[in-house]
């Protein structure tokens, strides 16, 4: 058994491999040299999906069964000509139900019923009555987070920046806004219930109604599927940040706070991951082995991952191109011996 980490960067993807001790890493790559690798996922059958983008040549979705032979999907997510929208990149892939989902910029959600070979727009969200009042955040107008309910595939959540969270209870036909309790960042005169800047979403693996929400203005939790949200910031020295992950074995949460939306760097140059073992009630900083002086790199929303082993491995990729790994649930960290291009995404897979 081994562990594979796929690091997506501004200039391609890199494969980091180790045994389950996760102490020594072999590095291979780049795959898709020269392309942004915006997100990576693997479905239950073991098929890998890599989303690429280029400021010059546009975006695409690629699949492989073996990580060696890749094929570009010809009927990937695409806006129709009459929408006058541009599909700039795929931000996220959710492959956990029989219908796969892709969240994209310019914001929208697409679904695939055939393992990713063809994709159709989820019209109920993409043409939502509030659509004309959707405004972009600093990272663009992007649908970057999709949650599904394993017990009820008709329930779907989608996070869009800087609009907020939407939920469908009917398989994507209709969507309701779920922003109650979340501060507004962009006010729209007509629609007071949007204009929220969600940064990241994860759900409790056993209870889809419990969702943790990284937000522009704080760290929040819902226990009722998004009907109401409460702040959970006890122990945090900053409520701003992007990525959030949850270990499905221990249900431990990990986040990486940054200093305010103005600065977006580690506070005082101390690079720390924060951990919560009680569902976000309290947070503790982790710094053993992480740079604690003159460290001013950021971590983007898809650049934090966990491997769900016991103890859980935690993986961080930074905008400075460094990769930091913990093989003991965050108690201690080592830096992998590489300096990669700016890291956009990190995903991890346990291989038999």
């Amino acid at each position: 058994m081994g562990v594979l980490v796929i690091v997506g960067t501004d200039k391609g993807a890199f494969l980091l491999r180790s045994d389950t001790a996760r102490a020594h890493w072999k590095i291979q790559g780049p795959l898709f040299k020269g392309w942004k690798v915006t997100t990576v996922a693997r479905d239950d059958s073991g098929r890998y999906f890599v989303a690429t983008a280029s400021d010059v040549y546009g975006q695409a979705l690629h699949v492989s069964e073996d990580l060696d032979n890749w094929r570009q999907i010809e009927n990937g997510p695409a806006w129709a000509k009459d929408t006058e929208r541009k599909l700039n990149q795929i931000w996220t892939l959710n492959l956990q139900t029989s219908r796969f989902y892709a969240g994209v910029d310019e914001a929208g959600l697409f679904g695939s019923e055939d393992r990713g070979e063809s994709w159709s727009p989820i019209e109920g969200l993409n043409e939502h009555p509030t659509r004309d009042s959707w405004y972009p955040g600093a990272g663009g107008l992007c649908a970057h987070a999709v949650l599904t309910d394993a017990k009820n595939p008709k329930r779907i959540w989608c996070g869009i920046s800087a609009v907020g969270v939407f939920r469908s209870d009917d398989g994507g036909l209709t969507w309701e806004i779920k922003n109650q309790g979340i501060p507004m960042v962009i006010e729209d005169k007509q629609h007071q219930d949007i204009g929220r800047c969600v940064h990241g979403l994860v759900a409790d693996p056993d209870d889809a109604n419990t969702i943790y929400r990284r937000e522009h203005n704080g760290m929040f939790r819902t226990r009722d599927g998004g009907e109401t949200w409460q702040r959970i910031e006890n122990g945090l020295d900053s409520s701003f940040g992007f990525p959030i992950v949850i270990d499905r074995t221990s249900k431990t949460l990990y986040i990486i706070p940054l200093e305010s939306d103005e600065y977006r760097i580690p506070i005082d140059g101390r690079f720390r991951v924060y951990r919560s073992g009680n569902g976000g009630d309290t947070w503790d900083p982790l710094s053993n082995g992480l740079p604690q002086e003159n460290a001013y790199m950021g971590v983007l929303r898809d650049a934090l991952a966990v491997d769900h082993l016991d103890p859980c491995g935690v993986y961080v990729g930074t905008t400075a191109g460094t990769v930091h790994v913990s093989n003991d649930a965050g108690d201690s960290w080592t830096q992998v011996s590489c300096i990669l291009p700016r890291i956009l995404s990190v995903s991890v897979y346990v291989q038999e």
Partner: protein
Amino acid sequence: MPQVTVQLPSILGRIIDESQAIPIEADSLGGALRALVDRHPALGVHLFDETGNLRQHVLCFHNQTNTRWLDSIEAPLAKGDTITILQAVSGG
């Protein structure tokens, strides 16, 4: 139809797992680009945007002529012509 060569940048050649120099038979510049995408559908999304036009930062030369300055992309081709796809400097 005259045979011409479409020269791709390496970053696109890798996508289709083929040589960067692709022989194409076509009567016109537009016909050559359509034939290229017919043969390699994966290139379509990388060369053309949602409006069907060449992407903003993609340059296309017919021999030494930037095709942006042509009145029509249906300019006739002659045997041995070269169509070169490049990344525009405006792309960064």
